[in-house]
Protein backbone atom coordinates (compact mmCIF):
# COMPACT_ATOMS: atom_id res chain seq x y z
CA UNK A 1 0.00 0.00 0.00
CA UNK A 2 1.39 3.37 -0.98
CA UNK A 3 1.15 5.77 1.91
CA UNK A 4 -0.43 8.57 -0.07
CA UNK A 5 -2.02 11.49 1.65
CA UNK A 6 -5.42 13.18 1.35
CA UNK A 7 -5.16 13.74 -2.40
CA UNK A 8 -4.72 10.04 -3.13
CA UNK A 9 -7.74 9.05 -1.03
CA UNK A 10 -9.81 11.86 -2.48
CA UNK A 11 -9.03 10.55 -5.96
CA UNK A 12 -9.67 6.93 -5.05
CA UNK A 13 -13.00 7.69 -3.38
CA UNK A 14 -14.01 9.86 -6.31
CA UNK A 15 -13.32 7.08 -8.75
CA UNK A 16 -14.99 4.38 -6.66
CA UNK A 17 -18.02 6.50 -5.88
CA UNK A 18 -18.30 7.43 -9.55
CA UNK A 19 -18.27 3.81 -10.67
CA UNK A 20 -20.72 2.84 -7.94
CA UNK A 21 -23.08 5.64 -8.89
CA UNK A 22 -22.88 4.64 -12.53
CA UNK A 23 -23.77 1.05 -11.65
CA UNK A 24 -26.67 2.17 -9.49
CA UNK A 25 -27.79 4.64 -12.13
CA UNK A 26 -27.92 2.03 -14.86
CA UNK A 27 -30.07 -0.21 -12.65
CA UNK A 28 -32.24 2.73 -11.70
CA UNK A 29 -32.86 3.64 -15.33
CA UNK A 30 -33.76 0.05 -16.14
CA UNK A 31 -36.16 -0.20 -13.24
CA UNK A 32 -37.83 3.15 -13.93
CA UNK A 33 -38.15 2.42 -17.61
CA UNK A 34 -40.19 -0.65 -16.73
CA UNK A 35 -42.90 1.95 -16.41
CA UNK A 36 -43.60 1.59 -20.09
CA UNK A 37 -44.59 -2.03 -19.59
CA UNK A 38 -47.37 -1.02 -17.26
CA UNK A 39 -48.00 -0.73 -13.56
CA UNK A 40 -47.58 -4.36 -12.67
CA UNK A 41 -44.08 -4.78 -14.04
CA UNK A 42 -43.00 -1.52 -12.50
CA UNK A 43 -44.43 -2.19 -9.07
CA UNK A 44 -43.07 -5.74 -8.89
CA UNK A 45 -39.58 -4.49 -9.20
CA UNK A 46 -40.31 -1.38 -7.22
CA UNK A 47 -41.43 -3.37 -4.19
CA UNK A 48 -37.96 -4.83 -3.90
CA UNK A 49 -36.80 -1.36 -3.03
CA UNK A 50 -38.82 -1.62 0.15
CA UNK A 51 -36.55 -4.40 1.37
CA UNK A 52 -34.19 -3.03 3.99
CA UNK A 53 -30.89 -3.82 2.17
CA UNK A 54 -32.05 -1.64 -0.69
CA UNK A 55 -33.10 1.14 1.66
CA UNK A 56 -29.71 1.09 3.38
CA UNK A 57 -28.05 0.89 -0.01
CA UNK A 58 -29.92 3.96 -1.06
CA UNK A 59 -28.45 5.85 1.88
CA UNK A 60 -25.00 4.79 0.73
CA UNK A 61 -25.76 5.86 -2.82
CA UNK A 62 -26.75 9.24 -1.48
CA UNK A 63 -23.48 9.43 0.41
CA UNK A 64 -21.62 8.52 -2.78
CA UNK A 65 -23.46 11.09 -4.83
CA UNK A 66 -22.89 13.82 -2.27
CA UNK A 67 -19.18 12.98 -2.03
CA UNK A 68 -18.80 12.77 -5.80
CA UNK A 69 -20.67 16.05 -6.23
CA UNK A 70 -18.74 18.06 -3.67
CA UNK A 71 -15.39 16.53 -4.53
CA UNK A 72 -16.21 17.29 -8.14
CA UNK A 73 -16.66 20.92 -7.15
CA UNK A 74 -13.32 20.71 -5.33
CA UNK A 75 -11.71 19.42 -8.51
CA UNK A 76 -13.21 22.28 -10.50
CA UNK A 77 -11.88 24.84 -8.06
CA UNK A 78 -8.45 23.20 -8.37
CA UNK A 79 -8.60 23.07 -12.14
CA UNK A 80 -9.75 26.59 -12.79
CA UNK A 81 -8.13 28.62 -10.06
CA UNK A 82 -4.46 28.57 -9.18
CA UNK A 83 -5.32 28.98 -5.52
CA UNK A 84 -7.43 25.81 -5.37
CA UNK A 85 -4.46 23.48 -5.45
CA UNK A 86 -2.95 25.13 -2.42
CA UNK A 87 -6.07 24.48 -0.39
CA UNK A 88 -6.98 21.08 -1.80
CA UNK A 89 -6.44 19.37 1.51
CA UNK A 90 -8.67 21.74 3.47
CA UNK A 91 -11.27 21.52 0.74
CA UNK A 92 -11.21 17.74 0.92
CA UNK A 93 -11.87 17.83 4.64
CA UNK A 94 -14.74 20.19 3.84
CA UNK A 95 -16.05 17.68 1.32
CA UNK A 96 -15.85 14.90 3.88
CA UNK A 97 -17.69 16.95 6.48
CA UNK A 98 -20.43 17.82 3.99
CA UNK A 99 -20.69 14.19 2.94
CA UNK A 100 -20.98 13.02 6.52
CA UNK A 101 -23.58 15.67 7.33
CA UNK A 102 -25.66 14.85 4.26
CA UNK A 103 -25.41 11.13 4.93
CA UNK A 104 -26.35 11.61 8.56
CA UNK A 105 -29.35 13.68 7.55
CA UNK A 106 -30.45 11.13 4.97
CA UNK A 107 -30.05 8.35 7.49
CA UNK A 108 -31.92 10.31 10.12
CA UNK A 109 -34.81 10.83 7.72
CA UNK A 110 -34.82 7.30 6.35
CA UNK A 111 -33.98 5.03 9.25
CA UNK A 112 -37.37 5.59 10.96
CA UNK A 113 -39.01 4.70 7.63
CA UNK A 114 -36.92 1.55 7.36
CA UNK A 115 -37.65 0.58 10.94
CA UNK A 116 -41.27 1.57 10.56
CA UNK A 117 -41.51 -0.56 7.46
CA UNK A 118 -42.97 1.96 5.05
Amino acid at each position, binding site marked *: MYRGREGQWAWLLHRLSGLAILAYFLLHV*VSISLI*MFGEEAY*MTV*HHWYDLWPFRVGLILVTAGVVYHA*FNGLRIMVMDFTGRGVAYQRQMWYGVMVLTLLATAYTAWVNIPRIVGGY
Partner: protein
Amino acid sequence: MIRARTFTDARQQSHSNAELNWWIFMRISGLILVFLVLGHIYMTFIQVSESDATYTAVVAKLQNPAWKFYDWTILALTMLHGVNGARYSIEDYVRSRPNRAWVKTIFYTVCAVIFTLGTVGLFSI
Protein backbone atom coordinates in the same frame (compact mmCIF):
# COMPACT_ATOMS: atom_id res chain seq x y z
CA MET B 1 -1.29 1.83 -28.59
CA ILE B 2 -1.56 5.32 -27.20
CA ARG B 3 2.01 5.43 -26.07
CA ALA B 4 4.09 8.29 -27.44
CA ARG B 5 7.71 7.42 -27.53
CA THR B 6 9.07 10.11 -29.74
CA PHE B 7 7.95 13.54 -30.67
CA THR B 8 6.78 12.23 -34.03
CA ASP B 9 4.50 9.71 -32.33
CA ALA B 10 3.23 12.37 -30.05
CA ARG B 11 2.45 14.74 -32.88
CA GLN B 12 0.63 12.08 -34.82
CA GLN B 13 -1.54 11.37 -31.85
CA SER B 14 -2.25 14.95 -30.94
CA HIS B 15 -4.33 15.92 -33.92
CA SER B 16 -7.60 16.14 -32.02
CA ASN B 17 -8.90 18.03 -29.05
CA ALA B 18 -11.08 15.11 -27.97
CA GLU B 19 -9.50 14.70 -24.56
CA LEU B 20 -9.58 18.43 -23.89
CA ASN B 21 -13.25 18.61 -24.91
CA TRP B 22 -14.18 15.67 -22.74
CA TRP B 23 -12.26 17.18 -19.86
CA ILE B 24 -14.22 20.41 -20.17
CA PHE B 25 -17.47 18.50 -20.64
CA MET B 26 -16.90 16.54 -17.42
CA ARG B 27 -16.61 19.76 -15.51
CA ILE B 28 -19.58 21.52 -17.05
CA SER B 29 -21.87 18.50 -16.89
CA GLY B 30 -20.66 17.79 -13.38
CA LEU B 31 -21.53 21.29 -12.28
CA ILE B 32 -25.04 21.02 -13.72
CA LEU B 33 -25.55 17.53 -12.34
CA VAL B 34 -24.63 18.61 -8.83
CA PHE B 35 -27.87 20.61 -8.75
CA LEU B 36 -30.03 18.29 -10.81
CA VAL B 37 -29.11 15.05 -9.09
CA LEU B 38 -29.02 16.36 -5.55
CA GLY B 39 -32.43 17.94 -6.25
CA HIS B 40 -33.72 14.69 -7.67
CA ILE B 41 -32.52 12.66 -4.73
CA TYR B 42 -33.93 15.14 -2.28
CA MET B 43 -37.32 15.21 -3.91
CA THR B 44 -37.72 11.51 -4.52
CA PHE B 45 -35.94 9.95 -1.60
CA ILE B 46 -35.43 12.31 1.29
CA GLN B 47 -38.45 14.57 1.16
CA VAL B 48 -40.68 11.59 0.54
CA SER B 49 -40.04 7.94 1.07
CA GLU B 50 -38.73 5.92 -1.86
CA SER B 51 -41.78 3.71 -1.48
CA ASP B 52 -43.93 6.68 -2.39
CA ALA B 53 -42.51 6.52 -5.91
CA THR B 54 -45.38 4.32 -6.95
CA TYR B 55 -46.41 3.80 -10.52
CA THR B 56 -49.19 6.31 -10.20
CA ALA B 57 -47.03 8.92 -8.57
CA VAL B 58 -44.27 8.57 -11.17
CA VAL B 59 -46.70 8.64 -14.07
CA ALA B 60 -48.47 11.65 -12.60
CA LYS B 61 -45.23 13.52 -12.17
CA LEU B 62 -44.01 12.73 -15.64
CA GLN B 63 -47.18 14.09 -17.21
CA ASN B 64 -45.58 17.45 -16.68
CA PRO B 65 -43.19 18.15 -19.60
CA ALA B 66 -40.95 20.18 -17.30
CA TRP B 67 -40.27 17.09 -15.18
CA LYS B 68 -39.87 15.06 -18.30
CA PHE B 69 -37.21 17.45 -19.49
CA TYR B 70 -35.62 17.58 -16.01
CA ASP B 71 -35.35 13.81 -15.83
CA TRP B 72 -34.17 13.40 -19.38
CA THR B 73 -31.43 16.00 -18.80
CA ILE B 74 -30.28 14.02 -15.81
CA LEU B 75 -30.45 10.84 -17.84
CA ALA B 76 -28.44 12.21 -20.73
CA LEU B 77 -25.84 14.12 -18.76
CA THR B 78 -25.32 11.37 -16.21
CA MET B 79 -25.01 8.85 -18.99
CA LEU B 80 -22.34 10.85 -20.79
CA HIS B 81 -20.56 11.89 -17.61
CA GLY B 82 -20.65 8.40 -16.18
CA VAL B 83 -19.71 6.58 -19.32
CA ASN B 84 -16.81 8.90 -19.95
CA GLY B 85 -15.70 8.53 -16.35
CA ALA B 86 -15.82 4.78 -16.74
CA ARG B 87 -13.88 5.13 -20.00
CA TYR B 88 -11.13 6.90 -18.04
CA SER B 89 -11.03 3.94 -15.67
CA ILE B 90 -10.99 1.41 -18.49
CA GLU B 91 -8.16 3.25 -20.22
CA ASP B 92 -6.23 3.42 -16.98
CA TYR B 93 -6.62 -0.20 -15.96
CA VAL B 94 -7.09 -2.22 -19.15
CA ARG B 95 -3.69 -2.00 -20.71
CA SER B 96 -3.76 -4.35 -23.66
CA ARG B 97 -5.25 -2.87 -26.76
CA PRO B 98 -7.46 -5.82 -27.82
CA ASN B 99 -8.86 -6.21 -24.31
CA ARG B 100 -9.52 -2.53 -24.08
CA ALA B 101 -11.33 -2.57 -27.41
CA TRP B 102 -13.81 -5.30 -26.50
CA VAL B 103 -14.34 -4.11 -22.92
CA LYS B 104 -15.21 -0.70 -24.32
CA THR B 105 -17.44 -2.11 -27.05
CA ILE B 106 -19.50 -4.19 -24.64
CA PHE B 107 -19.70 -1.39 -22.13
CA TYR B 108 -20.75 1.24 -24.67
CA THR B 109 -23.36 -1.10 -26.13
CA VAL B 110 -24.91 -1.86 -22.77
CA CYS B 111 -25.01 1.81 -21.91
CA ALA B 112 -26.53 2.75 -25.26
CA VAL B 113 -29.27 0.16 -24.83
CA ILE B 114 -30.06 1.37 -21.34
CA PHE B 115 -30.03 4.96 -22.49
CA THR B 116 -32.49 4.13 -25.26
CA LEU B 117 -34.65 2.20 -22.83
CA GLY B 118 -34.69 5.12 -20.43
CA THR B 119 -35.48 7.66 -23.13
CA VAL B 120 -38.26 5.57 -24.59
CA GLY B 121 -39.61 4.90 -21.12
CA LEU B 122 -39.61 8.57 -20.31
CA PHE B 123 -41.35 9.67 -23.44
CA SER B 124 -43.75 6.74 -23.78
CA ILE B 125 -45.89 8.05 -20.97
